[in-house]
């Protein structure tokens, strides 16, 4: 399944819940954490649980961002969401220790709330989290994706976010690289200026160039922009198909190395072409 777009939906906004799935996001992230005020945490939890249980969201991936494991809301979040049975939980402020705790709790609840198929997405949003991203990503086999939490990271680093996102250059590269090393999905950090569509597109293009597979959206208007940026262009697809055809022809002729438009094509380039064709067929 293509997972380029993930839309955050505040857990305490039922009006947003009932139309969450019409915007074409690949994943929906129902949020119990930062977008929900403290005095509404319990009602958000119940609303999200009811939403997941009542509505058919089978054509999208349903994720719930629960509160941090060291918060007073974590245990209730976990228990209620295990009953709701989303496709995945999103764990904020993830570190190896945090994931190990979550794993232990999931195992503890498995007899009452079977959860062996439950997946995890993690959010790396501290400086230490960035530096230890590899061991965090490897901490559980449930982890299928990692999100960079840029705003919290800036707070942790005590820097002011810039429009050009200079402060995130290293963390972005690190997270994209780590995700590739662990063969999991990498989503780029949210872009908070929801009215700046041009700026968002530039940001998404940077994310793509760095190796992210998609970008988290905090407003439905951002979804189509991400899809446009991350889509495989016709030109890319045509070129990939031609490389594969040239390879197959070379194989028929018993040739090992072959060229395409004057360039020698080696194994990585061929594999990249095959990935593009495979990804295109899923779009």
């Amino acid at each position: 399944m293509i997972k380029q777009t993930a839309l955050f939906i505040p857990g305490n906004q039922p009006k947003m819940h009932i139309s969450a799935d019409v915007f074409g996001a690949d994943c929906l992230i129902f949020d119990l954490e930062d977008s929900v005020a403290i005095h509404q945490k319990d009602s958000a939890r119940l609303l999200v649980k009811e939403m997941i249980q009542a509505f058919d969201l089978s054509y999208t991936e349903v994720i719930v961002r629960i509160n941090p494991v060291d918060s007073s809301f974590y245990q209730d979040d976990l228990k209620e969401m295990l009953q709701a049975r989303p496709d995945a939980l999103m764990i904020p402020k993830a570190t190896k220790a945090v994931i190990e705790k979550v794993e232990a709790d999931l195992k503890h609840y498995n007899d009452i709330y079977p959860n062996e198929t439950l997946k995890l997405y993690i959010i790396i949003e501290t400086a230490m989290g960035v530096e230890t991203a590899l061991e965090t990503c490897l901490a559980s086999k449930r982890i299928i994706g990692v999100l960079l939490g840029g705003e919290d990271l800036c707070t942790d680093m005590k820097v002011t976010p810039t429009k050009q996102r200079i402060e995130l250059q290293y963390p972005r590269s690190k997270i994209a690289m780590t995700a590739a090393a662990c063969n999991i999905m990498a989503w780029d950090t949210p872009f908070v200026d929801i009215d700046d569509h041009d700026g968002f597109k530039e940001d998404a293009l940077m994310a793509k160039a760095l190796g992210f597979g998609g970008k988290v959206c905090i407003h439905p208007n951002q979804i189509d922009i991400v899809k446009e940026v991350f889509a495989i262009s016709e030109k890319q697809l045509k070129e990939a198909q031609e490389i594969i055809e040239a390879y197959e022809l070379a194989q028929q002729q018993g040739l090992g190395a072959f060229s395409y438009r004057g360039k020698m094509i080696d194994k990585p380039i061929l594999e990249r072409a095959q990935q593009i064709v495979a990804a295109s067929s899923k779009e």
Partner: protein
Amino acid sequence: MDPKVINSFKPYQGTVDVIKGGRFECDKNKGHHDKVIDDLNKALDQLPLCDGMTLSFHHHLRDGDHVLNMIMTNIAQRGYKNITLVVSSLFPVHAPLIDMIKQQIVTKIYAAYIAKEIGIVISQGYLRDGCIMHTHGYRATMLIQKEVIIDIAFLAAPSTDQAGNATGSEGITSCGVLGYAIADAQMAKHVVLISDTIQDVRKPEIRAEWVDMVIKVDAIGDPKGIVSGTTTITKDPVGLLIAKRTADFVEAAGLLKDGFSFQTGAGGISLALVQEIYKRCQTQHIKGSFASGGTTKFLVDMLEKGYLKNIYDVQCFDLDAVRSVKNNPAHIKISAQEYADITYKDNIVCKLDFVVLGATEIDTSYNVNVTTGSDGIIMGGSGGHADTAYGAKMTIIVSKLVSSRLSVIVDQITTITTPKETVDVLITERGIAIHPRHQELIDHLKATTSLPIMDIKTLYDIAIKMTGIPNKIKHTDKVVGVSLYSDGTLLDTIHQIKED
């Protein structure tokens, strides 16, 4: 010469200001003399007020109108009762009518639109002789065909000269157009203009020869209130999605081409749609022939940038439209008759390629309700809804499928405002339903686009799965109003709501 022929002519009586002895009664001063009275009470003293009279008002000042309240308060203080109001529309500002209805000062209302604040008391059964909900076009028909006779038309006139040549385009409280006042001015027994600006008028919409009296007041209304309820593009992502999907449909159905003509409402989704259409005209170099309605800044932008040849305007929804209709000869004022009277041969609605309208309810047969809400209370009215649906080649209804936990699609409609025969498409955030009479279009769109085309019953099922089946609206057997079609025939009755 045959003496009989000579004797058939009445002898000359001499020339006086008023000639009554000849074949025609003539008054050479009518239409030309100073008709201004600057004291409201003195003016009303001179009018043939009586119990049971029929009075008319227009709604071009919208929620900024002061005139109706000013006149009716004075009439009520004089003790008159059983008055019939023939108003083009009623807005929340007209709330003083509520007590007048309860006290039977006003006992019958003809209107194309009634705001909920007043609709409630009618739905509760207080309006003794009921309300006749009609279309904008039929209002013109019934006045011009004398099906309803107005005793006195009280017409707010933003600018008038002393003789009664009036326009909506000038004055402190300029509202742009007086399209809904023309039939009143032409046909009422007595025509009274109320104005706060007496000055020369270059291009009158109301002609002095129709006018009997001009009352000068300090203010006829609040210019800010003229601005329609919603004149900003919606920011609601669902609304934006519906607008974009509607533009996709219009384009895929082949309706967006050189010379196209259209009308939309003034709600947030409609404005977003106009912007989408505008963008596509820009990128595809398409120029429309005209837009009509209810006009806003967004249509004015299209006109001024050359993407429309004309706007035909029967009322202005915002001050940019007011400015444009005054200054731009391509922005043309029309009367309600020219706009939507379906008996008028050159009406605008029958030239529309497509119209985009809203709905409070639509049933699975495509009947549409914009008169009563989900609680059965009168909260709107056809306006030009049924007229444009009749005339346009394609009628598109846009609405959220589910709003406030209720489905817009119902199995049984509360009040029919616009009949199914004239409705073609429903576009929601979850799908597009096209009437089966357009099977070719359905097949074409399914084969060539990724638009979510589905049966209206499927959309209904999707909605009900989310909302559950709502309780039925409780009402009594008492009929408190009727919903008339563009030709004056009875579409539906409106019943008194049953209150717990």
